[in-house]
């Protein structure tokens, strides 16, 4: 349960279910943060409160980490393939392999950290860190949301309770995807409750 002091005043009197389903007291800490006090974003209004900030689950890292381990092994494979390599060339290749591997791992970490999904009392925000040359910041007002759905796919999705939430907005072809996030049904419930509150003029 969330402590009452952490809940913004305008949400304290509501009887919506999302306040009881959302919680910071589980293994998703860092992935899903409810009413974070130390987070703000560009363009945030004074009367706008962040309800949830959610990132992709760490299991999405597994492929990247495996690839990094493979990258470290490539110089060793080269060493065994070309037996006549000099010592300096061998050390150079090993060092380069380590640099590439660490870069790939940190690249994955930075992409994970800055690819965030934010739900506030006014809007939803989807920040996608695509690569070093490109990122996308999408936002939609809550009242523009038309349809929300989520899906769990695969063994890992079921095991770790990870899924993708799809949010269809009024704009043509504008669909937000909160990809591979923990507890997707709680996020869907939160968005549905916020939509109702918005329609009732509570927020």
């Amino acid at each position, binding site marked *: 349960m969330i402590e009452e002091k952490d809940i913004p005043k305008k949400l304290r009197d509501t009887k919506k279910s999302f306040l009881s389903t959302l919680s910071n007291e589980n293994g998703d800490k860092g992935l899903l943060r409810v009413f974070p006090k130390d987070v703000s974003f560009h363009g945030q209004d004074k009367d706008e409160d962040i309800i949830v900030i959610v990132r992709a689950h760490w299991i999405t890292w597994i492929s990247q980490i495996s690839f990094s381990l493979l990258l470290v092994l490539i110089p060793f494979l080269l060493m065994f393939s070309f037996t006549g390599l000099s010592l300096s060339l061998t*050390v150079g290749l090993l060092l380069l392999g380590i640099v*590439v591997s660490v*870069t790939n791992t940190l690249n994955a970490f*930075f992409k994970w*950290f*800055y690819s965030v999904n934010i739900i506030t009392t006014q809007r939803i925000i989807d920040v996608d860190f695509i690569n*070093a040359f490109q990122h996308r910041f999408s936002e939609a007002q809550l009242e523009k949301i038309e349809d929300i759905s989520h899906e769990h796919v695969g063994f890992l999705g079921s095991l770790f309770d990870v899924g993708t939430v799809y949010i269809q907005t009024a704009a043509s072809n504008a669909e937000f995807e909160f990809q591979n996030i923990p507890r997707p049904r709680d996020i869907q419930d939160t968005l549905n409750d916020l939509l109702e509150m918005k329609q009732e003029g509570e927020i």
Partner: protein
Amino acid sequence: MDYGDILGTMAFEFPDFTWLLKVPLAILVAGIIFYNMMMLLRIRILADTVDSNENVGIKRLAYIHTILSIVGCLVSLVLILLG
């Protein structure tokens, strides 16, 4: 004429093709340095976009990684070119 003797004394010297390995590696090194610098710039933008307490540590990590990767890349490039 015994051709077997001639073949036995002939020395085959294969040309050194390691320079073929060095050219793409040098391009790779330049690419890694450029990518890491672009990554640092992107992180600075995103740290301003979504601000949190963790940003300080993340930015520090990005700076350290960029510096170390540049040093690592240059050292490895020198070693590869010398090898």
